[in-house]
């Protein structure tokens, strides 16, 4: 958990020190020349979540499913293989074990998923002033066809919170898919990487069929840049969460433990 969390924190720090920290000197220009036409850098425009021009955001959204699964996604399979599961089930009920395992995977994955965005936002807020985003800036990728656009221009902090929550829930639920597949697959590497495979296959398939607006790689990003229906996004996230939980709960209750 610590390694994965450290790596995700590293993404935030690298982004901050290469793409944000060097440009803080330009804030002084706006103080010295108040008549300047262009808007100054602010905590939103410099945030990782809106930095679609550097590779950090794209890298985050490719690496996060892997890092999120790293801590506990394979733990259920390992418990089965080592026989630890038998030790636990002789002392606790299946439901207790199952729920605890599910939440451990969900929460650890969600935490690692939001760490780059959250850490970077805190750093950029500590460095750059708060200036409410304006549509005229044109650098945010949030338009009237994207999700939560009115929230972004009226209450931008809540927009950030909304996306952090969305990422937390989605990646947490995605990581729990490894619990579901552990019932039928015994290769640890495959089980741990299964959430990433599902995410990546969706990315490829939706690109092939030119349906990128339905792709989690795009609709989970704060800068979006694609037409997204919030009902669809929230529905998919909820379906993933509920579906994986139900599947896992059903099999946990009825599966034989060898």
């Amino acid at each position, binding site marked *: 958990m610590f*390694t994965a969390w450290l*790596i995700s924190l590293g993404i935030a720090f690298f982004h901050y020190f290469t793409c944000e920290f060097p440009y803080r000197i330009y804030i002084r220009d706006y103080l010295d020349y108040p008549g300047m036409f262009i808007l100054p850098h602010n905590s939103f425009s410099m945030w990782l979540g809106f930095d*679609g*021009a*550097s*590779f950090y*955001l*794209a*890298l985050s959204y*490719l*690496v996060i499913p*892997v*890092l999120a*699964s*790293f801590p506990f996604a394979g733990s259920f399979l*390992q418990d089965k*293989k*080592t026989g630890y599961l038998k030790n636990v089930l002789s002392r606790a009920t299946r439901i207790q074990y199952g729920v605890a395992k599910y939440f451990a995977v969900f929460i650890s994955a969600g935490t690692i998923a939001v760490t780059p965005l959250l850490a970077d936002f805190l750093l950029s807020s500590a460095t750059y002033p708060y200036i409410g985003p304006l549509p005229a800036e044109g650098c945010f*990728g949030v338009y009237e066809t994207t999700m939560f656009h009115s929230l972004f221009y009226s209450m931008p902090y809540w927009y950030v919170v909304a996306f952090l929550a969305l990422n937390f829930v989605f990646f947490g639920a995605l990581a729990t898919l490894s619990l579901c597949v552990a019932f039928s697959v015994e*290769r*640890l*590497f*495959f089980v*741990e*990487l299964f959430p990433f*495979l599902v995410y*990546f296959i969706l*990315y*490829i*398939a939706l*690109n*092939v*069929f030119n349906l990128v607006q339905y792709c989690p790689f795009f609709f989970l990003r704060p800068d979006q*840049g694609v037409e997204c229906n919030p009902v669809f996004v929230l529905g998919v996230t909820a379906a993933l969460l509920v579906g994986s939980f139900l599947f896992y709960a059903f099999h946990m209750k009825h599966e034989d433990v060898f």
Partner: protein
Amino acid sequence: MKRKTACFSHVLLHDIRYSILISWKKYLALFLVTEAIIGALMVRIQSDCQLGMVLPPLTAGDVLTYLLSGAKIFRYGAGIPFEIPYIWIFIYLMIAFIVGENHANLMTSRYMELLLSQEKHRWWASKCIVTVLDVLLAYVTIFAAVGISLFWGIKPVLKISPDIMKALIWKAFTLKPNQWTVIFVLLPILTSVCISLLQTVSILFFKPMICFAGVITLLVVSLFYCNPAVIGNGTLPLRNTILPFEGTIRTLDVALADAVLIVASIIIGNIKIKKVDLLSEV
């Protein structure tokens, strides 16, 4: 000497069989997805023709170029969003996945194979060769997918059409066959072998998942930085100086960098495997 050579070939054959046993479904997935991408390409060309564009029939060369082209040079700060070419990332992550799964329990429960191999350097040499074969087999799978698509009306010639290139990759260009082979096939294979060997040797030090994340990072950083020292650029033929896309990647520079890293990975792996304790954790 003859007995030891015979033993090495057995070790190698064993590893090849194990690798194919574990990975054949992934090669099948690679094949099927490549076929789907080719199908989507044909649909796109057809719809472009219906919209009035005059395009010659697709050739195998066009299809392979489209699949293996990667991305042009990226210029940061020009207001252009950073995008990842999905076909390119799919091919190389699939290779990374195959290599990762083959070697995932290298340091744990496969100790019996190591003992039966008799010599650690022999075992490691076999692993390196299998990694190279994994990469080659992935490319063979892609070529096979293109080969199958010839039955859908694609012309079986390697010549690339400038008009098709303009429609697909935004600029018309042609290449001599030997130039095309070098920058679209040989150099990417060499770079892919380099990346895969780096992944294999890093599995001796770190968990396989972290190594896989490392490969993703390397590929994405290569897209951003057009520099032969960032080795993933060898898999991006459009950045080669031979092509008119303002690339700065010279074939020789990349080949040299790859060769150095390949040799370094093999040596580092050999040193590590001689010193490592095999404690067979699950």
